[in-house]
Each structure stands twice: as C-alpha cells, then as structure tokens.
C-alpha cells in the first residue's frame, strides 16, 4: 500500500536542504494551506454537480446538461458567475459583523476539513485529541451563522439564525455522544490510531449492535448539523426566503454555499473514519489473499469512495423526506436521540468491558 508520507518527507527534506528551519516551516504551512484550499474548492464543485444531478434523477429530470459533456462544466460556470458578481453593501447593517460572518463559517469548515485523514500518511493535523478537536472547531460555525442572521437586520434572517442555533446546539449533543461511543470502543481519540486499529475489520462490523446504532444516530445528527433537508428549517425557502443568508450576495453568499457542502463532506468523512475504517481497505481477518488484493486499491480512493457512499445516503434522504417542524425537530433530538444515545453508550461500555466484540 502506497504511503503518502514518503512524498511529504521528500518535500520536507528538499526544503530543509536549502532553507533555514524557520523558513521551511513557514513555506510548508503556506503549501499545506494552498493544497487544502484547492482540495476544498474542487470537492465543493464536485459535490454541487453531484447534488444537482442526484436531485434531478430523484425528481425524474435530467439535471444540468448544457455546459460541457453531461453538464460537467456547470459548477465551474457557476463558480465564475459567483466570483464576478457584485457584493452589495446593505444600508443599516452592522458592517463589520456582516462581513465577518461568512469568514467565520468558512474558517470553521476548513479547520474541520484539515483534520480528516485523506490517505495513508496524508493528514495535516494529528493531535492525540484529534476527533475532539474536530468537533470543537466545527462548532465555531454556529457563531458565524448567528452573527450573519443578526447583522443582516432582517427578520427572516434572524428567525433563520435562531432556528439554526437551536438546532445545531441540540444536535451537537448527539454528535458528541455517538462519537464518544466509538471513542470508548477504540480507546483513543487520535485519528491516525483510530484508522490503524481498523486494520482487521471496520468498527461498524467489530462493534456490531452499538456501533450500528451510533452510526445511524450520527448520520441523522450530522444531517441536522449541516442544515440539510429534512432538517433545513434555518433556510426553509418557502417560509424564510433563504434564512440567515438572505441578504448576502456575490462571494459572501458563495462562502455560505461552499461551507454547507463541505460540512456535508466533513460529516461523511468523520462517519467513514470512525465507522467505515477511513482509508483502511476492506480486510477480513484470515483471508490473506483477499486482503492483499484489497491493498492494491489506493488508500485515497477508499477514503473518497466511502465518503461518496455516505454522502449519497445523506442526499438520498434530503430528497426523500419532507421538512420537519421546529417542535418535531427538537422533540426528535431531546426525547428520542439523546436517551437512545446514552443507553447506547452504556451498551458499548458493557460490550467493551466484557469483551463481547469481534
């Protein structure tokens, strides 16, 4: 299996050979930042195309099909349109907070994006509290949304922001608890170690019942956390025009749009890291030949493939279920998911203590 740390170490050695240490670190930070942002933008474009196509097929339409073969260049055209649009200055808003809000949202999602293990040896941030750090930075985005809603000076935006805040604070609990269930099982929070531990079987198989319950809860809560349908009350277009980003135009709107798609990618990336083995190929203990064949598929394809499957499930229920009401949404979280989650955590502890897993 190809280890990307060979490449990164080679670049590191090359830079160190002719630069002092301080300069090397600065250059490397800039390079990593550039790579992350390019990857971020490309994944967002791919996701926008996929979403429009999948949505179209669910509604018996064709979707984008004019720009390029099968409409493949449509997201690029959209991107250039967005980049060239004027950013409209609105009267009677708190200009500083209004302009700050999209950046808060995008910074939170880029930071969370940076924690993901993309392939063997291809990971930017690897603290020993890795997964906890990821949840922590992704919670910054809520502040951005609340500020956007308030600073727009528009009642629809404000209602959207309030709904979004209530929803994200509630569902953060479910996300945290279901991740904690898996941390109990893994015994570590470091992302590389979590992936490494799934060498002989992914956690969703090895942790059987509690892991599957945690996976389902994580998917539901993750969808709610990214404000996607059927939990898209904060931007419910039939009630609130567009919720918290109604007043934004040009690239500022684009930031919200990008962050929404990338948050979906981050959620599915975390789901595939914790439950489906991250970049780890599908291994069955004992089947040496089979495992060896699976190792020939590059690790980055495994990771992106798993993410794609999870994202397809998320899109699937966006275009299948109708939108919930706010009281139904909060009742689902506080009366069903949280108690179920706490029970599941206990079940996982029992499974780990009595060694009932595979």
């Amino acid at each position, binding site marked *: 299996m190809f280890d990307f740390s060979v490449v990164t170490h080679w670049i590191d050695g090359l830079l160190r050979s002719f630069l002092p240490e301080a300069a090397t670190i600065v250059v490397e930070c800039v390079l990593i930042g550039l790579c992350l942002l390019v990857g971020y933008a490309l994944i967002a474009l791919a996701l926008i195309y996929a979403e429009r196509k999948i949505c179209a097929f669910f509604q018996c339409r064709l979707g984008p099909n004019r720009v390029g073969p099968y409409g493949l260049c449509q997201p690029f055209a959209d991107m250039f349109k967005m980049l060239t649009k004027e950013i409209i200055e609105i009267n009677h808003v*708190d200009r500083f907070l209004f302009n700050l809000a999209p950046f808060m949202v995008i910074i939170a999602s880029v930071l969370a994006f940076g924690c993901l293990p993309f392939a063997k040896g291809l990971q930017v941030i690897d603290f020993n509290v890795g997964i*906890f750090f990821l949840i*922590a930075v992704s*919670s910054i985005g*809520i502040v951005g949304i609340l500020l956007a809603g*308030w600073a727009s000076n528009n009642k629809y935006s404000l209602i959207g922001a309030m709904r979004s805040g209530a929803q994200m604070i509630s569902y953060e609990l479910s996300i945290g608890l279901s991740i904690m269930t898996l941390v109990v099982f893994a015994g570590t929070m470091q992302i590389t170690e979590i992936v490494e531990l799934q060498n002989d079987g992914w956690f969703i198989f090895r942790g059987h019942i509690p892991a599957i319950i945690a996976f389902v809860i994580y998917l539901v809560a993750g969808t709610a956390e990214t404000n996607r349908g059927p939990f898209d009350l904060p931007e419910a277009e039939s009630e609130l025009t567009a919720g918290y980003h109604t007043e934004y135009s040009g690239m500022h709107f684009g930031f919200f749009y990008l962050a929404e798609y990338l948050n979906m990618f981050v959620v599915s990336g975390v789901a595939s890291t914790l439950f489906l083995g991250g970049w780890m190929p599908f291994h069955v203990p004992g089947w040496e030949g089979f495992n060896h064949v699976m190792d020939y598929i590059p690790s980055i394809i495994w990771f992106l493939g798993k993410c794609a499957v999870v994202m397809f499930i998320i899109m699937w229920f966006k275009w299948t279920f109708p939108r919930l009401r706010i009281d139904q949404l909060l009742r689902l979280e506080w009366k069903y998911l949280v108690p179920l989650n706490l029970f599941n955590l206990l079940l996982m502890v029992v499974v780990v203590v009595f060694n009932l897993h595979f």
Partner: protein
Amino acid sequence: MNSAPQEAVFYILAATIVVFSVMTVTTRRILRSATYLLFVLFATAGIYFQLNYSFLGAVQLMIYAGGIIILYVFSILLTSTDKDKATRLKNSKVMAGLLTALAGAVLCVFITLTHNFGPSHYIGDEVPMKVIGTALMGTEKYQYLLPFEAISVLILACIIGGIIIARKR
C-alpha cells in the same frame, strides 16, 4: 519558546489578546463586544496549543467558542433590539473604572514578578489523554474527582434554577 517563529507567534497571540480585550470593554455595541471576546478566547486557545497542551486548547474552543459565546449571542438576540447602543459613560464612572483596572493591573504585575514560576515551556510531547482522564477521575492525591463532582452539582443547580425562572411567567 525556544525558536524565533515560536516567539513571533506568541507575541502575535499576546497582542491579539490585549487589543481585543480592550476593544471588548470599549465598544458600545453589545454584540460586537461578544465577538471581540470570542477573538480573545481564540487567541488564548492558541497559546494552549503553543504550549503543546492540545486537550485544553480544544476544550477552550469547544466550551467557550462553541458554548458560552453562543449562549451570549443567543441571549443578546432574544433580549435586545438591533439599535441597542450603550449610552456614553459619565466621566466620574470612567475614572472609577480606570482606577479599578489600574489597581487590578498593579496586583497582577506584583504577583507575576514575585511568583517563582516553573519551567517557561513544557518539555516533551503532548500530554496523553489517559493521564488527563485518570487525573480528572481519580480519588488519590493530585486527582480531581471531588471538585469535578462538586462542579457538576453546581451546574445542575444552575440548570434547575434557570428552568424555574423561565417557567415563572
């Protein structure tokens, strides 16, 4: 802080903390004040990360940025209108505030100068999560189960109090 870039980052973080702390108390718009406070807390988390204590840094981000500031913003949104600007303070109040701040600063500087600190930076790797966990949950010397539980009782009391206040209409 052993190398030049480390020191540069430290000074940037320290300057951020000082500037935004002052702006937090001088701005006249309450939501801006909350936002500046958020920046102060971010920079503090940055210092924890620089000390290689990533657990405390992540906790700082989670609790303060993800919890406390959101609660602040939420309560501001629920209670005040968008044209809410604080009225200018009277001169006597400004003077009193400055004097109190000065007294606080003198006290802090005195303690900082006379206290004998340990090593200026942590040597070694990140603190392993297991060590932090057992220290928080143990009952022996230098372990913190009792304060941990006492704080949870306090928080429970706060939650019940909040519910009672909210239900009295």
